C-alpha cells in the first residue's frame, strides 16, 4: 500500500493497518447493494409460498428464474453473512486460537451451506 504517506518509524514499528480492511469494507457494501432487491424478492416469494404444500413448492422451484435468483440470493447472503461474522470474531474473540478456528469454521460452513443449497436448487431446475 501507500508507504509514502506513512512515517518511516510507523513502518518500522509495524503497527497500523496492513491487513484487508478496505477490501472487506468494499465487499460488504457490494453484497449489501446486491441484497437490497434480492431480499425484497425473497420476502415476497416466501409470503407466496407460506402454507403451500411440497408439490407447490417444488413446482415453484422448477422455474429457472426462481431457481437461479434463489441461488444468487443464497450465495450472496451467505457471503455477506460470512463477512459480517469474521468481523464479529475479530472484535469479540480475544483468544487467538479460538478466533482463528471460529473464522475458519465459519468460512467452511458458509461455503458448505451455499454449495448444498445451490446444488439442490439447480437439481430442481434441471431435473425434478
Amino acid at each position, binding site marked *: 500500500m501507500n508507504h509514502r504517506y506513512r512515517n518511516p518509524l510507523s513502518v518500522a*514499528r509495524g503497527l497500523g493497518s496492513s491487513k484487508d480492511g478496505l477490501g472487506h469494507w468494499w465487499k460488504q457494501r457490494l453484497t449489501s447493494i446486491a441484497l437490497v432487491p434480492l431480499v425484497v424478492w425473497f420476502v415476497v416469494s416466501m409470503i407466496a409460498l407460506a402454507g403451500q404444500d411440497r408439490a407447490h413448492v417444488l413446482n415453484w422451484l422448477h422455474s429457472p428464474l426462481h431457481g437461479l435468483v434463489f441461488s444468487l440470493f443464497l450465495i450472496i*447472503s451467505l457471503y455477506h453473512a460470512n463477512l459480517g461474522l469474521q468481523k464479529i470474531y475479530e472484535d469479540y474473540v480475544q483468544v487467538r486460537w479460538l478466533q482463528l478456528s471460529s473464522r475458519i469454521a465459519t468460512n467452511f460452513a458458509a461455503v458448505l451451506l451455499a454449495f*448444498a443449497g445451490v446444488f439442490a436448487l439447480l437439481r430442481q431446475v434441471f431435473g425434478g
Partner: protein
Amino acid sequence: MPMTMRERPLSPHLSIYKVELPMLLSGLHRITGIALSVGSLLLVAWIESAVYSAEAFATLNRFLGSFIGQLMLFGWTFSLIYHSVSGVRHLLWDTGRLLEVKQIHSSSKIVVAITIVLTLLAWILGGGFPGGAS
C-alpha cells in the same frame, strides 16, 4: 515486535454512555446479523427437505407450525427486515448523507417504524400465528 511498545489509546467503555436509540439500533444490527446467519441453516434445511424428502419437509413444517417454530420464524422475519432497513440506512450514510446527530435520531425512529410496519405486514400476508403454519 519492537521493544518500545507504548500503551496505545483505548476507546471509552460502553457503560459511560447514556443509552439512546441510535446506539441500541447499532447493536441490534449486529445481533440481527448473527440471528440471520444462524437462520440461514434453517433456510438451507428447508430447501434440502423440499427437494429431497417428503418426510423431512413434513417434519420441518410441523416444527415451524409449532409455538417455538412460529416464534423462531417471527424472529427471523423481524431480523431480516430490520437488518435490511437498517442496512439501507448504512448505505445512505456511506454516501455521506444523514450524518448530523439530529438526522441520526430522526432516521432511527423512521427505521423502527418501517421495520414494525413491514414485519407485521409480511407476517399477516404470510398467514403466521393464528392457527399456525400448515
